[in-house]
Every structure is written in structure tokens, then in C-alpha cells.
């Protein structure tokens, strides 16, 4: 009887270690945070799946002429957004109507894009891939290219246990990588954990933040993931009315997604169309630039007054949301060992 059990035990160990590709990956985030809203049972994470997603994220093969990757507009050193450009540019330097959002803490977001047009992170990648101003490629042709490559069948094998490359598997791998982009180690986070202290200036700025900003930019994600009209007059060239385009509801006119303020130091320019270059421009908007309309956020109905000193303090607080560990984490960066491995040359 004993011998039978030990034989079975050995077999079980063999079976489980052989299926290495299924080694589960547990998302690490602060215990004080709410639970993610992403349904992991539909897309369990594993090291191999995340790695496949990372390679896809940085691979310009996904664009029509192999010049644009996701990272072209979502650069890791800028908290995964595009800097120095009001409107992000894609293939052949074409520009769209919006500034690319910063990618972080996506497991807590349901609706994506500035107007919430994408309702699930697993189908997010379809939008830039097929947008003629961004990557200008058809998704089915992307799959053809992946199947014909020397690199991907092996990566899919490691991630999914077979070399069949489907749309569902490709999208879920990209999601898997994006879900690991968690920023939770800024100075603010360290202060909250009792490992650091705000300066007097930062402390004062935090109090102002709690008074004027937190209702939409709620802690700990620094967004409540809702849509709001924050008083930006519509740009007369772009005529972008935000969420209304998706819902066809006039009550959503000029509503845009509340972005996270984490790493705001590095995600300029600001707003959905990048109209503000500096944080001081943003604060100036909130104190003296708000345009009233029927859909203006109720949180902004009362005038906000900040003295010059208060603006400096508030800015000092916002800078404590910078998380350098996130931006320079090699696990999130360009997978050079995959792309520049001489053995894998096509």
C-alpha cells in the first residue's frame, strides 16, 4: 500500500513539473488596495504568457510596415506614455486626435481609452493595431505574420502548450503583460507604509490635494476610473466630445476618462489632447480656466482658489507620485535578450 502511494506521488510530481508553462504568476500589489476587477480565471497569468505579451508589446511587426510597436507610444521610461507630443503619432508620422494614456494599474480599470470605447483590456490592442493613424494593420494579418515568424510559435508553445496562434491567445498574452505593470512604490506609497516622510511642503500639498482633487483622483489609484467633464473647452480643430461618441448620449458630451496622477511628473503633456505642457498649466486651468457647461463635473462647480505658494506645494505633492522603480523595472522593459539573440535570427 505504501509503495503504491509513493509511486503515485512520484508520478504526480513528474506530471506537474512537466507542465512548466502553467507555472502560475501571482500579481503583487499592496494589501491595502482594493481587489482588481480583471477576471483572472478567464486568463490565468504565467511567466511564459507574460513574457510572450512583453515581446508582442515591443515588436513593431504588429504594424503594417514594421515600424511601430505598442512601445512607440507607450514608452516605459515615461510611465508607458508618449512624451513631447500633444497628439501621439503613428505610422508614417500620422497623428490622431488624442494623447496616448499612461499605462499602469490596468487590472483596476474596466473601461479604457479617453472615451471608454474599449470595454475590456483583452480587446484593447485591436484599437491601435487597426487604426490607420497608429499601426494601420489588420489583426488577422498580424496573426499570419506571427505564424510565419521563427520566433512566435515557440513563445506560444511555452505560454500555451501548443503552437496554434489564435486571436484570443495573442490578445490575452498582451493583456497578461500589461496587467503586470503595477506602480505602487512612489514616495507617497512609502510614506503610506510608514517608510518615509513627506517634507512640510509635500505635506501641505497633500492636504490641498485631499481638499480639491481626491474626489476624482481617488487614492490609492489616483483615479476613480470614471468619466468627467473637467471644464476643458472643446478644441475647435479636433472637435472631440469624448464619451458622447461612444454612448451617443448628450449627457456625456465633453466627458473624458479621469486619468491616474501616478508618475504625473513624467507623463506630460497633459489632458486627452495634450494641450498642457506643464503641471503649472494644469493648475492654472483648474483655478482660472474652467469652462462651465451643462455637463461640467459637479466637483468643479465651485471655484478653486490657490495662492502661488499653494500651487507650488500641491505640485510638490504630485511629484511624490513618481515611481522610478516602476519606470526602470527591467521586467517591464525592452526584451533585448529575445530580439537580439543571435541564435534566433530569422
Amino acid at each position: 500500500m505504501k509503495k503504491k502511494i509513493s509511486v503515485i506521488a512520484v508520478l504526480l510530481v513528474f506530471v506537474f513539473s512537466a507542465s512548466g508553462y502553467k507555472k502560475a504568476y501571482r500579481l503583487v500589489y499592496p494589501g491595502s488596495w482594493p481587489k482588481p476587477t480583471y477576471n483572472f480565471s478567464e486568463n490565468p497569468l504565467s511567466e511564459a504568457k507574460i513574457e510572450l505579451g512583453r515581446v508582442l508589446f515591443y515588436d513593431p511587426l504588429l504594424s503594417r510596415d514594421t515600424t511601430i510597436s505598442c512601445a512607440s507610444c507607450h514608452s516605459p521610461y515615461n510611465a508607458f506614455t508618449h512624451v513631447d507630443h500633444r497628439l501621439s503619432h503613428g505610422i508614417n508620422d500620422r497623428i490622431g486626435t488624442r494623447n496616448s494614456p499612461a499605462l499602469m494599474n490596468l487590472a483596476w480599470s474596466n473601461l479604457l481609452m479617453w472615451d471608454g470605447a474599449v470595454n475590456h483590456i483583452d480587446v484593447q490592442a485591436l484599437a491601435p493595431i487597426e487604426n490607420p493613424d497608429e499601426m494601420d494593420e489588420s489583426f488577422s494579418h498580424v496573426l499570419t505574420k506571427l505564424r510565419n515568424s521563427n520566433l512566435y510559435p515557440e513563445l506560444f508553445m511555452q505560454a500555451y502548450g501548443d503552437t496554434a496562434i489564435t486571436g484570443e491567445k495573442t490578445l490575452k498574452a498582451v493583456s497578461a503583460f500589461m496587467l503586470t505593470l503595477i506602480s505602487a512604490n512612489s514616495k507617497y506609497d512609502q510614506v503610506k507604509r510608514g517608510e518615509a516622510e513627506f517634507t512640510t511642503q509635500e505635506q501641505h500639498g497633500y492636504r490641498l490635494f485631499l481638499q480639491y482633487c481626491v474626489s476624482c483622483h481617488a487614492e490609492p489609484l489616483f483615479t476613480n476610473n470614471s468619466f468627467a467633464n473637467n471644464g476643458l473647452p472643446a478644441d475647435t480643430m479636433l472637435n472631440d466630445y469624448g464619451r458622447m461618441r461612444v454612448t451617443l448620449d448628450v449627457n456625456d458630451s465633453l466627458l473624458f476618462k479621469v486619468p491616474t496622477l501616478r508618475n504625473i511628473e513624467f507623463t506630460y503633456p497633459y489632458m486627452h489632447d495634450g494641450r498642457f505642457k506643464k503641471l503649472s498649466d494644469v493648475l492654472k486651468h483648474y483655478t482660472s480656466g474652467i469652462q462651465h457647461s451643462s455637463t461640467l463635473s459637479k466637483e468643479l462647480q465651485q471655484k478653486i482658489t490657490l495662492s502661488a505658494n499653494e500651487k507650488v506645494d500641491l505640485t510638490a505633492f504630485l511629484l511624490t507620485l513618481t515611481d522610478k522603480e516602476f519606470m526602470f523595472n527591467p521586467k517591464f522593459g525592452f526584451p533585448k535578450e529575445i530580439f537580439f539573440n543571435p541564435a534566433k535570427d530569422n
Partner: protein
Amino acid sequence: MRKTALLILLLTFSAVVSAKTKLVQLDFSAVINGEKAVTGTYFHFNAKDSLMLENFRCYISGIELLDQNKTVFSESNSYHLLDLLTTNNQIIEFSIPEKLRFTHIRFQLGIDSLTNVSGAYGGDLDPSSGMYWSWQSGYINVKLEGKSSVFGKNQAFTYHLGGYSKEQNALQTVTLATNLLQAKIVCDLGNFFNENNFTGNEIMSPGKNAVQFATRLAAAFMISE
């Protein structure tokens, strides 16, 4: 005595376990004037108008069998992407209990809203099938493309019907009376175009036009004799 008892037990057991089933086969196609529609050919559907189809694909989902008003069977994992212009038969088949009686077939033209908000699926629901919008999440329930003189000489039409949310919900439920195990279900496009209730030759996003068009198109599905 023991052997007989065992035999009776085994027979009962096998009778219960191997309950008999029968196969239901739903054969979907598109017709114009009784002829099966195919791509590239011009069909005349009345004295003066013609129609040439280039693409007619749709999702059929949520298939149920009813006995009068009561649902007596629901197909599991009921999502099918059909190409109604291909020469291959578009047959959806499933097994039902042998003793099951039904009077109606019910199905949905399109994909339900829950699936529309749940991300990427595989098989017929794979987003690479060309029946999923990239710029705004959601399935395209029907793609109907071609040319018709109804819109002018050699004028093209492009109808991509989708939308799942509130007033934009273009999903349609079709209920057809039949008790046949092998039912032929046709979409009569000749009749549909002949009615000529078009407000334009293009619909490519969710909204009122898509809902109206989908409602009328769903009514064009019928059991063929």
C-alpha cells in the same frame, strides 16, 4: 438467482446511462427569388432592380427549442459564425433527447451583451474573424455588403450591424414554428430588398439605424418549405 439480479441491474443501468438522443440539424442559407445566393452574381428580385452580394456573414447564438411558449432545450456554448454566401452548407447541429418534442426554434441574430463586455473568446468568437470592431469594443452581428440598383447604378452598400448597450442594442431574437429535426432556415434577401425601406446605403457603427435595420433583417428569416 444472483446472476439474474445482476443482469437486470446491468440492463437497467445501461438503459439509464445510454439514454437515446436524436440529431437536430439547422441548415441556414440566404435566398433571392428562391435561388441560393452566392457572391458575385447579379440577381433580379423584381422587374427593374438587381442585387449582387459580396459578403453576408452573421452570428447565430442562443439556440433554443420551444414547446409552445416553454423552452425545452438550450444549446450549450451556442455561438456560430455563419457565411451565408459560401457554397459550403452552413449547418448547425446538436443532439437532443430522443423523446423531446418541440414546436418552435428560437435563436438570436448576433451576440449577447454579456459576451460583448467580457473580452476575447476563441473559436467562432475569435476577434480575428473580421466580425469584431477594433475602434470600439463589440461584436459585429451581421455584415451585409454588395451592390444594388436600389441605391443607384452599380451602387455599393455596406451594412455592419452591431451594438449591445441600451438603445444601441441591435441583438434580435427570431422564433420560427417548426418541429422538423432537419429544418431549412432561409434569409429571403430578395424580399428584403424589394421592400426598399432603406435610409441609406451604409451603416458601420452602433445606433438607431443599426437597430432598425437589424429588426427588419431578422424578420426576413423564415422556415423554407
